[in-house]
């Protein structure tokens, strides 16, 4: 038990902090927000070529860095802190775990290889609700090939992805409807990618429309025709932990920029920071940021244990729900308080706190909101289940 960063992990975090704080300034974020891709492609090339962050959780044998979720969390905490606009989350936190958990060795080499080269990948996992419960894409497997029809919404960075891992519903031999996962290249015929304008302009979502999209059954992840619902759930748990990392960074930065502002701002002849009610609000924000961080590190450790075969998917699910539930509310709370602490300027475009607020709202419902994750935990604790 040594619940702190190793020296190497500190170095990774510090490197990330130094890099992101330089490239993802307020001006850079605002510029990226207006780009069609939602991010600066040059910066993404820099990240993927120089920083090689997409390789963090890719095994060394395949050319990756072979690092774990603690290192990934340390990095994403910094990208979240500075609102970095990039397809890093989609590629590294959604696509990579899907490939690692579900793909065959041959597929892993191929698709992780493409990611290591800097290609953008993402997961088209569901409609709205958590954990694949709401998949609106049908897969019809025949001798001629696979045919997908339907819609997948809220696909992170779907606009610029080179390939997708698509979750579809398929009727299996047993008659049971299950989830299957497929590699689909962005150029495939019949696939229409529609950009969805979003409230949080720092994160792009797309809608994928599948209209008789036909390809080879070889593109099934893992190659075996079986229900991958539990696997998808586990992939999304790993993704949720990564999202929490960005939430923790955002929660911390919402506090930090607010404290910096109120220490300067004078009202009624006193710095706002001297008012007790203001101080107490900041104390509550710090409590949330620190506790969210503890939950994140815990979940990151569990993720590494899971990937090393040292704990089961149930334990991972618990950790993911704990961190996602808490950090979702912590970030939203801190960003909301941050606007209030800023006073009038908090609601202007000019100040950054509103960007954090929008990011907090967007991440809160992404991959399951706090209520959904708490109900999942309640089910683990109490056995019984209720429908949300």
């Amino acid at each position, binding site marked *: 038990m040594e619940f702190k960063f190793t020296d190497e992990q500190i170095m990774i975090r510090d490197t990330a902090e130094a890099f992101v704080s330089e490239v993802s300034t307020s001006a850079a974020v605002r510029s990226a927000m207006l780009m069609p891709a939602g991010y600066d492609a040059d910066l993404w090339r820099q990240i993927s070529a120089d920083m090689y962050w997409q390789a963090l959780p890719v095994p060394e044998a395949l050319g990756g860095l072979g690092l774990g979720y603690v290192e990934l969390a340390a990095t994403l905490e910094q990208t979240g802190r500075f609102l970095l606009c990039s397809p890093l989350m989609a590629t590294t936190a959604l696509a990579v775990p899907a490939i690692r958990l579900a793909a065959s060795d041959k597929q892993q080499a191929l698709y992780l290889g493409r990611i290591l080269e800097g290609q953008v990948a993402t997961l088209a996992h569901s409609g*709205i609700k958590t954990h694949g419960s709401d998949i609106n894409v049908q897969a019809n497997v025949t001798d001629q090939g696979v045919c997908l029809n339907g819609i997948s919404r809220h696909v992170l960075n779907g606009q610029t992805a080179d390939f997708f891992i698509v979750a579809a519903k398929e009727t299996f031999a047993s008659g049971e409807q299950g989830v299957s996962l497929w590699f689909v290249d962005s150029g495939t015929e019949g696939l229409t990618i529609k950009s969805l*304008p979003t409230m949080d302009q720092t994160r792009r*979502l797309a809608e994928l429309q599948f209209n008789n999209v036909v390809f080879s059954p070889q593109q099934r992840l893992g190659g075996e025709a079986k229900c991958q619902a539990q696997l998808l759930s586990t992939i999304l748990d790993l993704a949720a932990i990564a999202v929490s990392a960005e939430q923790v960074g955002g929660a911390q930065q919402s506090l930090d920029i607010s404290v910096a502002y109120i220490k300067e701002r004078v009202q009624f002849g*006193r710095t706002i920071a001297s008012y007790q009610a*203001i101080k107490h609000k900041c104390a509550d924000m710090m409590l949330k940021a620190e506790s969210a961080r503890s939950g994140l590190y815990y979940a990151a450790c569990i993720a590494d244990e899971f990937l090393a075969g040292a704990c089961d998917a149930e334990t991972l699910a618990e950790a993911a729900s704990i961190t996602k539930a808490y950090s979702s509310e912590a970030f939203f709370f801190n960003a909301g308080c941050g606007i209030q602490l800023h006073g*009038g300027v908090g609601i*202007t475009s000019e100040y950054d706190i509103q960007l954090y607020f*929008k990011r907090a709202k967007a991440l809160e419902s992404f991959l399951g909101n706090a*209520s959904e994750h708490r109900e999942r935990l309640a089910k683990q604790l109490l056995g019984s289940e*209720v429908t949300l």
Partner: protein
Amino acid sequence: MKLRFSASDEAFRVEVANWLRDNLCGEFESIRFRGGPGDEHSFVEERKAWERKLGEAGWTCIGWPQAWGGRAASIEQQVVFNEEYARAGGPGRIGHIGETLMGPTLIAYGSEAQKVKYLPAIRSGDAIWCQGYSEPSAGSDLANVKTKAVFDEQAQVWHITGQKVWTSLAHESQYCFVVARTDPQAKGHKGLGFFMLDMDQPGVTIRPIEQLTGTSEFNEVFFDSAVCSADDIVGKPGEGWQVAMALLGFERGVSTLGQQMLFQNEFNDIVQLAKRNGADRDPMLRQRIAEAHIGLRLMRYNTLRVLSGSDQGELQAEGMIYKLYWSSWHRNLGKLAMDVMGADSEILEAEPYALNRLQSMFLFTRADTIYGGTNQIQRNLIAERALGMPREPRGNNE
């Protein structure tokens, strides 16, 4: 104690409803349910026309004395009017600052000449007013006003110089009332004046403030030796604080009931949405919908208690909770709206940044707990004035 309206009030209700049904249509169909806080920038020309139409039919300023073109409507009638107006989807009243703030202030404190000059155009819906209270360095601290008013004896005019902020509809208004310091030596509440300023002059510059919604409801207004006639000061130089405070008192009047009806419309939208998209099956959202409903009903009864006057003539302490109450409630409603929309709350109507009504409300309600005195300020006031607790000390760091 009784809740129901009299038969004559109910007859008045029918009259209002009928008129709205017959007139809020056709060219005005497009502005139903539009305007109001967060949507103040929308359909300005149409709403100006609508204001004049209301004026022609005698539906502006109904609470004003008949001498100034009002109906001397009772509190009950004003409540009824506001209810029916909102129920019919009456657009946010672009003339509300004139009708509910400037007008009552002039009627109470203005000279006869001022009343003759300004009240008719408010009453007819022709003159739009905006307010100049807050300043960048003062925020909620009106006593720290830095805008200066210097009197030119020869020309018999005041020259106003300074900056105001958070001024709604500044670029659409003919007039602005401005609190400025007439005595450069004075500090705090002293040496202020209350001016009525023509916005159409070279000394006035307006710069829209872009908000987190992407729209610009608020403005910065810069006065550079803006001219104000000696006749256009309400009260005497040095009495500005008293007039300004009285004006804020009018703000907490019946206009709040109109506001509540807008809230009711928003709430109804959320309920309909929940029924449509299945959010009504989520037990937590059900609780929050019920909580919002309770909150809105109690807001109404809080207001009715205040409007009915105190039971025993003492300070109406309960009136002081109003701003804190509605702003917190409305902010929570914004979040509830997003949670009822679910993941789709993230998706806008169109590029580049077209928020739907509930999304806009969600974002804009973050301003509710800030402008007009932050929640922190409101709690100070309640504790100090209603509960007699010690005042927050002022610092020296001015």
